[in-house]
């Protein structure tokens, strides 16, 4: 176990180094990506641009540039090209909103995904299954931005009904009720896609597992059908769901809920990333990407540990 953790930790560091370098490279390579040119404005002279480049260190070797940026990011001194705000401070500010959105949505989509997947599998081929399948496919197909805007239009202030506020975020510590009230629509919007997807995956897993010999053995023991479903079928079918959930959850925690945060003006990490993309502002992008990548690598290690716990045949190596 210790050897496993050490090996995975070294792997994580290597992955993060590679990710940060690739992000830097992409940003420098894209047309119009040169920050000096944009900072200098439309009527800049070449001398102007050159001096900005020198100031930002952009005239140096690309490896040196990249190394300096990562170093200042890790020491917490990296600032935006656009408005000089501190990147690490900004990400920290966004974390409560992002976590509130993602943990709530994650619980909703996990619960309903498992619920509809199980119902759909048990009632396979019947009306309930067909109904859920149709809903799931609709849920998977709805673009998040469109769904967010439609929900706002239908249920929020300035729309047809005024049941919900038109976005924004109220900290949990300030007012728990307002916190939840503001987050209901964003939670649903973010969860819908995953509910549909998890439901489909779980349905087919259950239908595979239900034909396993050990399920027949469980039935031959005289167990009740609920116990067979929960203890024998669901237990085996949920293992792939653990992977899916781990990675999806890590991605949204890491700032992946860009569209939902933007549509509902929840000023979290994803929202911050969206701003930075709009301004082609490299330092915040670098910060958010590394922050997100760190979640992905940490969660994938957690998934492997959970696997070894869920399936005793798997050894951590």
């Amino acid at each position: 176990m210790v050897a496993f953790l050490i090996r995975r930790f070294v792997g994580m560091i290597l992955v993060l180094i590679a990710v940060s370098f690739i992000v830097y490279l992409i940003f420098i390579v894209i047309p119009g990506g040169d920050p000096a040119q944009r900072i200098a404005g439309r009527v800049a002279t070449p001398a102007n641009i050159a001096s900005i480049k020198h100031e930002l260190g952009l005239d140096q070797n690309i490896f040196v540039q990249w190394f300096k940026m990562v170093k200042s990011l890790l020491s917490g001194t990296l600032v935006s090209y656009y408005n000089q705000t501190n990147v690490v401070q900004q990400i920290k500010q966004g974390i409560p909103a992002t976590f509130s959105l993602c943990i709530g949505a994650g619980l909703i989509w996990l619960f309903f995904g498992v619920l509809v997947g199980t119902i759909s599998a048990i009632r396979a081929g019947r009306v309930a299954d067909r109904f859920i399948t149709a809903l799931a496919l609709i849920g998977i197909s709805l673009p998040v931005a469109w769904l967010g805007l439609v929900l706002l239009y239908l249920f929020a202030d300035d729309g047809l009904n005024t049941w919900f506020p038109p976005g924004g975020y109220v900290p949990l510590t300030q007012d728990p009720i307002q916190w939840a009230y503001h987050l209901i629509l964003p939670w649903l919007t973010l969860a819908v896609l995953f509910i549909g997807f998890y439901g489909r995956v779980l349905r087919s897993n259950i239908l595979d597992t239900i034909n396993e010999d050990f399920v027949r053995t469980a039935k031959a023991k005289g167990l009740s059908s609920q116990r067979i479903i929960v203890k024998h079928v669901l237990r085996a079918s949920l293992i792939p769901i653990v992977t899916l959930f781990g990675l999806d959850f890590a991605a949204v925690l890491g700032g992946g809920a860009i569209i939902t945060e933007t549509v509902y003006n929840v000023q979290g990490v994803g929202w911050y990333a969206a701003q930075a993309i709009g301004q082609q502002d490299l330092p915040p992008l670098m910060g958010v990407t590394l922050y997100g990548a760190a979640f992905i690598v940490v969660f994938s290690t957690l998934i492997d540990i959970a696997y070894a716990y869920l399936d005793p045949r798997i050894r951590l190596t």
Partner: protein
Amino acid sequence: MAEPLLDVKDLKVRFATEDGIVQAVSGISFNLEPGKVLGIVGESGSGKSVTAMTIMGLTRGVNARFDGEVLYKGTDLLNVSDSGMQEYRGNEIGMIFQDPMTSLNPVYRIGAQIAEAIQAHEEVDKRGARARSVELLRQVGIPNPETRVDDYPHQFSGGMRQRAMIAMALSCNPSILIADEPTTALDVTIQAQIVELIGRLKDDFKSAVIFITHDLGVIAEIADEIIVMYAGRVVEQGTTRDVFYDPQMPYTWGLLGSIPRLDRPRVDRLHTIEGSPPSLINLPQGCKFRPRCPHAFEKCTEEPQLENRVETPGHLDRCWLDVEFKRNHRDETISPGSEEAA
């Protein structure tokens, strides 16, 4: 004659599939008395497993149709609801399956899986169930049961897993143990141990046994009565003695001829039954074995009934051939080459 524990009367099982109606079992009848062993023999698809699973109520589904009766201590199990069957499964009738590699749940400990069966039927606490599991594992010959009880299935060998399955099936002292090809997935030396174990445990637990196999050699030692099935039908039925020493059905001869035997002169090649079993959707007319039978004649286009054609009462078969003709010719199939040797 003792009161029969299980009385199966003209059981028929059909499944509706996309290709048509599958006549999986078309009429099987037998009695099982306490302490007796019934062997059901036949090729894949002959209906032997479906018969066993139907007794347990494991073949139910929207596409399945049943006729006849399965009387267990006087109750027709075909009419018991699926949840009502929970009382019988494991508790009154225990079952062992073919492949011990896949029949145990890989994510639970062996002991927990046995304890689960016990707790499904009896009011025992966890510790009591665990102690019983250890004791059962000891009875089926698992070494160090106190520690092996906490192993996972993948830590057991194939033979040990089948022993664990037997322990699980016997955990609630069932009156009937159904063994559905329990030795097929195991190698030969382990096969003999498992058969011997089942033979011994049925006496310890006073259970009757239905032993399903495609290998007549496996049950020669322990069966009291044998049913030979072909294409969902019983083609020969009688005591083990009748079936081994006076087999009436050319199909039975083929099965007997395909077993290597030490008590007969050695032959270069064992007998093979040419061809494969018919599709259960589209059965041949007349005797179902006719297309593969070397002795088929005109009359075989008419289906023979299962009836008593020999002197021994209770020895039934489905063959039009003359009994004397069969007695003179069957050794050509059962032990080819032995005439010259003798």
